């Protein structure tokens, strides 16, 4: 017997939740308990009174699983709303990364040149290292980090994706 695998698609969800203790564990735990995937998850409070947090989850799965994920999130008591940005239409996805490269000579010059092309900013420099700050869609970050591997990457930190729909309407 072999275990069958299904075609998956990537979706980005914006989830508004009560900003209370344990909410992140509740959301993340629901994903593991039901066997769903989390590609990236970001959370921060977004309301003036710090009562509401927005969680952005990039997930993947077959369409019927995505539908379940949304329904399962929606039934959690502290969850106010779930919006599937991928389904809703055009939206902007951004991620920030801090990328440290070390080296001298040609590698150092090449790293600087690539950073310029990718519009990464230098936020720290020594005679044999740089820390670049780069923002963009996840695939741009991915490509940049890949290039840095060839010129002396030593460390990378990524925020995970945040996303918002285009146009005047709110989620």
């Amino acid at each position, binding site marked *: *017997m072999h275990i069958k695998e299904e075609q998956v698609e990537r979706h980005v969800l914006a989830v508004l939740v009560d900003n209370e203790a*344990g909410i992140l564990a509740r959301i993340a735990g629901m994903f593991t308990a039901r066997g769903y995937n989390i590609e990236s998850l970001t959370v921060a409070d977004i309301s003036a009174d710090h009562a509401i947090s927005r969680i952005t989850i990039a997930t993947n799965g077959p369409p*019927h699983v995505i539908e379940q994920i949304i*329904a399962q999130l929606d*039934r959690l008591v*502290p969850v106010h709303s779930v919006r599937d940005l991928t389904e809703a239409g055009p939206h902007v996805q951004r991620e920030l990364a801090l990328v440290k490269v070390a080296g001298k000579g040609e590698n150092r010059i090449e790293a600087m040149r690539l950073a310029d092309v990718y519009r990464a900013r230098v936020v720290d420099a020594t005679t044999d290292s740089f820390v670049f700050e780069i923002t963009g869609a996840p695939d741009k970050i991915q490509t940049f980090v890949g290039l840095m591997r060839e010129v002396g990457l030593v460390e990378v930190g990524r925020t995970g994706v945040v996303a918002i729909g285009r146009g005047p309407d709110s989620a």
Partner: protein
Amino acid sequence: MAEKSGAEILVETLLDLGVDTVFGYPGGAVLPIYDALYNHPKIKHILVRHEQAATHAAEGYARSTGKPGVVLVTSGPGATNAVTGITDALMDSIPMVVITGQVATNLIGSDAFQEADTVGITRHCTKHNYLVKKPSELAGVLNEAFHIATQGRPGPVVVDIPKNVQVAEAEFSAHNGKTNSRYQPQVDGDFKAINEAAEMIMRAKAPILYTGGGVINSGPKASEALCQLAELLGAPVTSTLMGLGAFPASSEQWLGMLGMHGTFEANMAMNRADLVVCLGARFDDRITGRLDAFSPNSKKIHVDIDRSSVNKTVRVDLPVIGDVGRVMEQLLAVLKGRKFNAPDYEEWWSRIKGWRATDCLAFPESKTEIMPQLAIRKLWEATHERHPIITTEVGQHQMWAAQHFDFEKPNKWLTSGGLGTMGYGLPAAIGAQLGDPDALVIDIAGEASIQMNIQELATASQYRLPVKIFIVNNEYMGMVRQWQELTYESRYSNSYSDSLPDFIKLAESYGWTGILIEDPADLETGIKKMIETDGPVLVDCRVAKLANCFPMIPSGAAHTEMLLTPEDVKGTMDDNAKALV
């Protein structure tokens, strides 16, 4: 406003919420609450013998009365012992509030004595849970906990209260905490969807109503609405295990339970129907059989209060989100408004008649042994006029009870359906008896399951509860053995109930009456004696050891591939079928 301790606030809020019965077990981290209870005789505390039993007793109380069950246990082992019953309540949508003690807030995380991460452990087996860090928050949290447990799809809610929060004081008045909750599930069905459902019903030539535990949870009015809807439609009705009793078994329209151990006619009708109206059920794997062969030619309407139940396993054509009782009332109004006059579905009923002729629940007769099915049938004959509350454990006896004990009313059938928890029946019977002291309450048990919470014999004795236990004793974990016969060529790996106690002496040692029934000739008199004996009675009914539960849809098979008799059993299965539960 006067200042009160957290423990006082808790007890007064419970009283305010109408709680009159609490199932619990004391311990270090709940001593302040137990001391507060000492001064409030209005709340009846039932001292169980194991925390798991407290949760099942609360479930039995809730399922038979419609009110939420309340549990009080200590930290650490008290809370972890309650986890099985909490999960059981989640799976079967039983309203329950579990109050757990916790170590003081300054000790949380220090591996203190009897500390467990109760909120972490119960996060995914509750509908919601709380750790209360201030006594001033208690009243609000408890009000919301009861609201969440009972509204929408019911379920268990855990409130974890550190010991210092029980002792510390806060201002309190009776109106504390009564704010509008953030949890407001949709009750009324969407008008457009109701109209569409009515149109689908009006077009159908072979409709079937497939009902579930949601109808029971929605309350007695939902069962009345179901009867009216069935009468208006003239369509056949089947039900899941959890929904038995919502529709009277004596009705001509009743097909019996569907699914793995359902009737041939119910499963065939599901397979051949052109419209399935699912009312408060969730297309569980025990119902559907092989998914790609499940009711292949039907349009499907799914009425459920929980959106996540829709399209979870079976794609439906029309979801209607709302309380099933309310939606049925809406649907009745629309159908009557349109002057719906049901056709007689003559062809449909003649096919059903053909399937009924199989007489799938027939079982072989024996003069030397008591057939377990006959034992259940005789129990029904002797008691049904009193509308007894029946609880069960889990296994063959449970399925035989579901097949051979007919229910006419809701809230009379208490069983662990989703989680399948052995040891459920005795504590659930205790809870049901407390909820309805005059009812005849019988736990139909197996000799293996009953041992999982046998200590509760003492609880029934202590509170003088006249609970009856009817053990269908075949000296096997019968359902395990049955699957081993179906799948593993009868290699009975660890399914024999060895070293059984003398149940009669055991019962007597707890102050119960014990009755042994061995001979088929004594079956009826033994049952009569059980009913006529005051106080708690345990019956050890020795039945045919190797009888199996038929009909059955084996793992991975379709509704049309039922095993009707032992002759249909092949003794092996392929790996795909073996991998299914």
